[in-house]
């Protein structure tokens, strides 16, 4: 369904990564996280609420900065990049899918999908072609001009996935992508992630959905900001 060519997933390495929020009272969200995700590997990060999963996803997605530790993306240290460089990396190398979809309500499905390419300076016609192609691949050919409020949860999540993938990211980050979906749509999403992994896409998935996590190659477990387990998924391997 998600047919792509030449997908080359990124290698992700974090070492002794910590995130401390000093305000309003000192909170340690992540503590000494050391982790490597190989190119084309699908890692699921599970853990109870408040365990630091989303904080880790935000740091891996260069949306937030760690308080200490290092982060390499494809061998390049991205820990101390400037805001401008981080924006460029997010645009060129990363794709995000969120639980609440985070689609812009005033844009149509196609315009939402085009968005990363807008900031890449891709001409309008080319963007449209690519966005329409992605939406068609994900079964949304009849929803190109619909706004998010006109789409079901599953359709919105597929639009968000198309937006994440249109820029051919090296790393796909997904934070609870099935959290707001019914069982049938969640199953579809699992299948889509499996296809992406099969095409060589590196995926880091934050989830409560045990069935989805089990589809991953590896499952890492976070508790109170610490990495307490790292095991093979149903199809993968443990390190």
């Amino acid at each position: 369904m998600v047919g792509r060519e030449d997908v080359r997933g990124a290698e992700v390495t974090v070492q002794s990564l910590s995130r401390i929020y000093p305000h309003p009272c000192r909170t340690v969200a992540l503590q000494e996280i050391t982790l490597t995700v190989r190119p084309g590997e699908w890692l699921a990060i599970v853990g109870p609420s408040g365990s630091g999963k989303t904080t880790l996803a935000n740091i891996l997605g260069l949306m937030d900065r760690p308080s200490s530790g290092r982060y390499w993306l494809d061998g390049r240290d991205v820990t101390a990049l400037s805001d401008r460089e981080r924006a460029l990396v997010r645009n060129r190398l990363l794709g995000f899918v969120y639980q609440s979809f985070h689609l812009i309500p005033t844009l149509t499905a196609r315009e939402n999908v085009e968005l990363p390419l807008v900031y890449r300076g891709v001409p309008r016609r080319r963007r449209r072609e690519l966005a329409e192609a992605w939406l068609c691949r994900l079964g949304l050919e009849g929803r190109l001009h619909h706004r998010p409020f006109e789409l079901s949860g599953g359709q919105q999540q597929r639009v968000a996935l198309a937006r994440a993938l249109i820029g051919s990211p090296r790393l796909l980050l997904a934070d609870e992508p099935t959290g707001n979906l019914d069982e049938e749509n969640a199953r579809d999403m699992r299948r889509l992630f499996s296809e992406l992994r099969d095409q060589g896409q590196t995926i880091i998935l934050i989830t409560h959905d045990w069935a989805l996590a089990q589809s991953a190659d590896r499952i890492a477990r976070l508790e109170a900001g610490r990495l307490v387990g790292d095991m093979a998924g149903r199809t993968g391997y443990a390190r």
Partner: protein
Amino acid sequence: MRVDDILVEAARPLWRHKLRSLLSVLSIVMGVASVIALMTLMQAASQGVGRRLDALGANLVAVTVNPLAASTGGTPTLTLPQALSLAKIPGVAGVAPAAYAAIPAERAGREAPVTVYATWPTFTRIMGYHVAIGRNLSMRDESASAALVVLGSAAAQALFPHDGHPIGRTVVIGGEPYRVTGVLAPKGSLFGVNEDAVAILPLTTYQRAADNGSVTSVYVQAQNPARIRPLMRELADKLGQWLGPQNQYTVVAQSLVLGVVHRISRLLTDILAGVASISIVVGGLGILNVHLMAVAERIREIGVRKSVGARRCDILVQFLAEAVLIAGIGGVIGTGLGVALSQAIGQRLGLSVVVNLRIVEDALVISLLLGVAVGLYPALRAAALAPVEALTFDR
């Protein structure tokens, strides 16, 4: 981000929030239109007065005996020989001695209020009148004390509304009959005085009829407008010798009046422009308010845009472009409205309105700069939002 994308992204929220955008645009439209209309009308009024005074001649000096002083302080009057001797002062190109009175002119039961100038034939040239029909008075008429009159266009119209050609007809002024020898071309009003409601008679004819040989005014034409002030001093010296203290007479140069009028009109224009500018500033504050609200409403959107790779400058430019677009649209519409208003009001007031492109350019540039000024702060706030905080912002 490409320029066409910046424009589309800037226009999209305006289209989305039509009423809000319309009100923001309207606030700028009102400000710009009022500035342009006021400035254009003030300029037209000022130029109109300037043109009239120019037509009188920048080299005209009017000498007038103070009628109150003359009536209360004995008999310091100016005689015709004294008035004519002013022509011998170096730098004087010509003089027109005159006596004037506000007496109605009558004909066949019709009455027209006119200012009667009893004067020499040089008067029309010095005062910038042109004879439209018939002929001007001549020195022969003056010498012969001929009972002739040249009428201003309004006076002729009032006395001969349907009778066509007034030349050769008779009108009665001060109980004496005068034959019409010429009609002047229209000149308009100056400071509220209708300069076409005039009747010009030979000076000697009027003096004989009134049994008064004095002259109340002398219109002096200077050879060189740049030498007006020294000439005025010399005229004042002469009049001082004949009439006594300074309050017995006045010596006024049209060029100086012109300067005062220009200064007053420039001051008034500046004051009005300042007042009208306040409305533009108020419009700008409206845009600022709307944009601060827009940033607050769109924090999550900003987070989404940043998550897919928007840089600070992309967000800054997007929000700034929205403000500039509103101000620009308001500026263009306001300019059009201001021009139309000034034309309409100018027509109603009888002003010859010529739109000054400089005012239009300034208004457009100011409205765009205003857009930048008021859009910058909200845009900077939007751009400075941390991606993760913006994305997880909970309203």
